[in-house]
């Protein structure tokens, strides 16, 4: 019996296809549990989860918080955006302080790429990346894949279009990596100023024409246009963006007839997505939110450090 090494979920990069599918399979059981009258199991009783968010976030934090609570873990949320960092504490000191409280899992969001990796080297807890800078947001990609799986028979050859500000999107990055791993065909589209130069290296086909990119797509994922991009001259204005890359009913008709529409939220209605599409029958935006809790439960369950890596005793020792 040896102590199992603590494992971290720092990104999709580093996962095998089998790892990813195991998370998605496990999430299915939690998805069902979340539809029961009693949405709670005692699985992580006695474990402590700290959600430490250096960036403001409501939906991801709430999703992780519910996930931990439904598994009976003790969950603490720390909004560093409005606490010690403001008082000048360094990331290193914040980490040492948290680690001294012996959490079993730390869920971290940070504006700097690589912050979760820095944390993972300095704590005994399992670290889950809830979004780091322009790098990765692995649980978002996993919940998107889980949602796609509920509508499409297979990822093999599935045409998935991701549209918007790809350069500054950790959601896009994690999604491209995961969808490639699962065998889908990833397309990206957006204004030239917002497409990364290395997109082809990531394994995505680049389109500058939205209509062309949409042709025959099985999944259309639009990303949020962040207002701060307008300040940096990368985008002229939202009306211009909406005219060239806004997803409306007319454009959606170019995609496969059974295409689904996804968006990581929060929505900029009338900018990247029209009301009609966002609320239409092909939109799975709210299902993505539901998937999020189930996928995060699966991640907490699978990454929670166990006691010892003993042979699992058989049921009833029989």
């Amino acid at each position, binding site marked *: 019996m040896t102590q199992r090494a603590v494992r971290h979920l720092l990104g999709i990069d580093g996962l095998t296809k089998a790892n990813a599918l*195991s998370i998605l*399979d*496990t999430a*299915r*059981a*939690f998805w*069902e*549990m979340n539809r*029961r*009258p*009693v949405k*709670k*199991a*005692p*699985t*992580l*009783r*006695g*474990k402590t989860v700290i959600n430490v968010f250096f960036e403001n976030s409501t939906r991801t934090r709430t999703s992780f918080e519910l996930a931990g609570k439904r*598994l009976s873990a003790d969950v603490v949320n720390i909004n560093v955006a409005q606490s010690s960092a403001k008082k000048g504490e360094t990331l290193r000191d914040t980490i040492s302080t948290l680690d001294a409280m012996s959490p079993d899992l730390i869920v971290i969001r940070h504006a700097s790429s690589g912050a979760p990796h820095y944390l993972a080297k300095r704590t005994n807890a399992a670290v889950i990346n809830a979004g780091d800078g322009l790098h990765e947001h692995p649980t978002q990609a996993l919940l998107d894949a889980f949602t796609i799986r509920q509508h499409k028979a297979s990822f093999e050859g599935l045409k998935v279009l991701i549209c918007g500000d790809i350069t500054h999107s950790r959601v896009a990055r994690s999604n491209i990596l995961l969808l490639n791993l699962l065998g889908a065909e990833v397309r990206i589209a957006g204004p030239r100023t917002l497409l990364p130069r290395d997109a082809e290296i990531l394994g995505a086909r680049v389109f500058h024409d939205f209509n062309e990119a949409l042709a025959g797509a099985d999944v259309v994922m639009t990303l949020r246009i962040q207002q701060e991009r307008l300040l940096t001259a990368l985008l002229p204005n939202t009306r211009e963006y909406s005219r060239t890359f806004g997803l409306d009913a007319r454009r959606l008709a170019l995609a496969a007839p059974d295409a689904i529409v996804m968006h990581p939220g929060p929505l900029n209605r009338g900018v990247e997505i029209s009301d009609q599409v966002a609320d239409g029958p092909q939109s799975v935006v709210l299902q993505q939110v539901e998937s999020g809790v189930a996928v995060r439960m699966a991640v907490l*369950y*699978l*990454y*929670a*450090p*166990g*006691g*010892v890596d*003993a042979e*699992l*005793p*058989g*049921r*009833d*020792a*029989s």
Partner: protein
Amino acid sequence: MRVLLDAASLKRGLTRVAGQIAERHHGSSGLVLVGIRRGGVPVAERLRACLERIEPGEVPMGTVDITLYRDDAASALPNPLIGASQIPVPLDGRHVLLVDDVVGTGRTVRAALDALLDYGRPRSVELMAVVDRGGRELPIQPDYCIQAVRVEAGERVDVMLEGSDLIAVVSR
């Protein structure tokens, strides 16, 4: 490996137990069978067929997975094989019959009870097992059982498929 119950004896046992259940419950209406995944599920399916032969009418059946409710869940992690629990009808006010293949320490049944109660508040819960191998660590006893057996520590008792029939075997 030695056979504890061959296909014919196990079948006779199921018929006998089904009779006891129907007698105690004055028929089978109001009953819900719940098989504990995975060993209890094939047993529950066959028991249900026996009950439906005794009295016409469908007996609802569900399954429960105990992975998340194990008392060693936190230390035995990771155990990624969580099966789906499926309870087709509301349990409130019904008589539930939990079905498993082998009852031993009683810890599986304890976990199954916790899982079950998260689905509702049954009027009563009873336990049926094919084999009672003894060695209880919790105050839990089967209400119906086909065969009780004393086995030595280190011996396993399994209920398994032989063709489409169930048999019970003891092995080391």
